[in-house]
């Protein structure tokens, strides 16, 4: 009696598989059919014709905790902090009022994992690289980032004036950041860098003197020295890769037609000088760090 039930079970499995597969297909075709309303590019970016996760609302994703100076008080929806301000500026350009913007908590990993997304775009200090662009779509860059080195005041590496002097330092970085690549390709330290899950873990290790220095993007470096680690200083800044500047981009599900509309909004913000204004409002301190060569 067990055998027929097994066959029945596998039969049910086939049915289930067959039932699952097309379900997603129909939903995509249905929503695809709904989206092309206007033919001109301007019309396609009209608020009503945008294909959004939640109709009528712009859903923006970011990780939690959301760190300063990118966000303030771990609350992306207050419009404060650089990325929150940029996100709201983009939304406004696209015709969304402040209460038509909703925020979703999206861990970094799930922002680029395959599968349906719960955000229209994700803003999380994500650097644009060609290999990443194979998995997701990026907007234009909205911020050109440099890397900053932070060490405890009075320690051996705090007085370094060149990258060569940092070669023997034990350096900590946060996983998933381009800082690790920057450390490896630019500083080329003699010891393996330490890689931490969270920025605060790296900061803790620095406080505990388990590492000599941390490398983070420059605005974060200013936040670390100002608010997170007493008696720390920025040793200096450097370019992540010698060739092209590293830029943060808004992240989209691969193939999302929204990209061009957001790019258009970003372009307008840049040419009107608004983007520079937002940057100077939230990231001004970035100007004073000495260059490390």
């Amino acid at each position: 009696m067990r055998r027929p039930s097994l066959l029945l079970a596998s039969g049910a499995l086939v049915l289930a598989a067959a039932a699952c597969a097309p379900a997603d297909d129909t939903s995509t075709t249905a929503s695809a059919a709904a989206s092309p309303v206007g033919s001109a590019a301007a019309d396609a970016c009209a608020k009503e014709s945008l294909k959004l996760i939640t109709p009528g609302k712009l859903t923006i994703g970011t990780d939690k905790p959301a760190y300063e100076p990118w966000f303030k008080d771990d609350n992306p929806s207050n419009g404060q902090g650089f990325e929150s301000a940029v996100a709201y500026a983009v939304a406004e350009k696209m015709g969304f009022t402040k209460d038509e913007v909703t925020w979703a908590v999206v861990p970094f990993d799930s922002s680029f994992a395959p599968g349906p997304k719960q955000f229209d775009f994700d803003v999380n200090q994500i650097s644009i690289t060609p290999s990443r662009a194979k998995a997701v779509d990026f907007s234009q860059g909205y911020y050109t980032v440099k890397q900053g080195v932070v060490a405890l005041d009075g320690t051996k590496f705090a007085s370094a004036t060149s990258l060569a002097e940092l070669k023997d330092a034990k350096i900590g970085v946060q996983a998933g950041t381009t800082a690790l690549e920057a450390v490896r390709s630019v500083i080329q330290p003699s010891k393996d860098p330490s890689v931490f899950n969270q920025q605060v873990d790296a900061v803790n290790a620095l406080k505990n003197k388990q590492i000599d220095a941390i490398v983070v993007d420059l605005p974060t470096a200013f936040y670390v020295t100002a608010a997170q680690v007493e008696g720390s200083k920025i040793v200096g800044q450097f370019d992540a890769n010698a060739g092209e500047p590293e830029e943060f981009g808004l992240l989209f599900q691969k193939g999302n037609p929204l990209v061009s509309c957001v790019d258009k909004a970003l372009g307008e913000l840049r040419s009107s000088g608004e983007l520079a204004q937002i940057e100077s409002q939230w990231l001004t301190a970035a100007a004073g760090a000495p260059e490390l060569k």
Partner: protein
Amino acid sequence: MTEGEAAGSPVAEPEAAESPAGNPEAAGSREGDLRAEPGGTSLPSEAAAPVGSPGRGESPVWVKSERQLRREAELRGRARRSVSVATASTIVVVVALVVGITSSPGWPRVRETFLSPEAFVAALPDVLRGFVLNIEMFLIAEVFILVLGLLVAVVRGLRSPVFFPLRALAVIYTDVFRGIPTILLIYLVGFGIPALALQGAPSDPVTLGIIALVLSYGAYVAEVFRAGIESVHPSQRAAARSLALTQGQTMRHVVLPQAVRRVIPPLLNDFVSLQKDTALVSVLGPLEALRQAQIHKDLDFNFTPYLVAALLFILLTVPMARFTDHLAARAARRQTGGGTA
């Protein structure tokens, strides 16, 4: 099929007895064979035939009764049927899974992000390098874990009232450290001990990670040892004590040797578990296999490196699991005196 046939013939009988883990159909047919003897039309000398080795001088005349032949054919048929049903249902399930997964709309993306050969090759050297660190960590940790676990188990077994504080300490230790999730313990030890800024306290993340693993697994292993010690029959202690052995001598020469032998399979089980949990030390910063895989994943937004790490862990744990099975089987064989009881 051949096994079923072999089991029926006296020539192959001793061979089959040597591998009791053989296929159950074969065992069934052998049983049927023996049961057949008394009721069958065969000569009484047949009953002895399977026991006697074929090389003996007076080779017994073996003539299978027609009934026996029918029975064997029936058993063979049944075995064939069950094998073909199993094969068919396996094929159906596998095909359903493969078709179901590959025809899903997201499959091309999944294949690209989880099963990319380029990403696999790119990540392999780094992940492998990280994996060496995992191996180092669990090999070092295991030594301390066994010592600590045995110590705690023995302390818990001390009878004298003088040792009450020690016993209480052992109980508290197992309760506390078995209760804390290993990853939490790694965090607490890894960031807590250096924060104390004590002179001479370790600050190297690998050392701290190993300390945390030893504390966590020591508690599990202590309980395994205690179970082993308690499984030794009280009569063994009584006998040893009546031979004028002290408590300590009884423990050392009588109880522990038996206890340890009994708990080797569960110990190896914990060892396999430890191998995997070395990946948790990644939170402290060292570049072990999981972290190396994560770095590659974050670089290209491709999850294939995780598959690389997973495969490496499997490659290590599967032989361990088989070795555990082998030891368990050997222990079972020894306890039954080599027979098939």
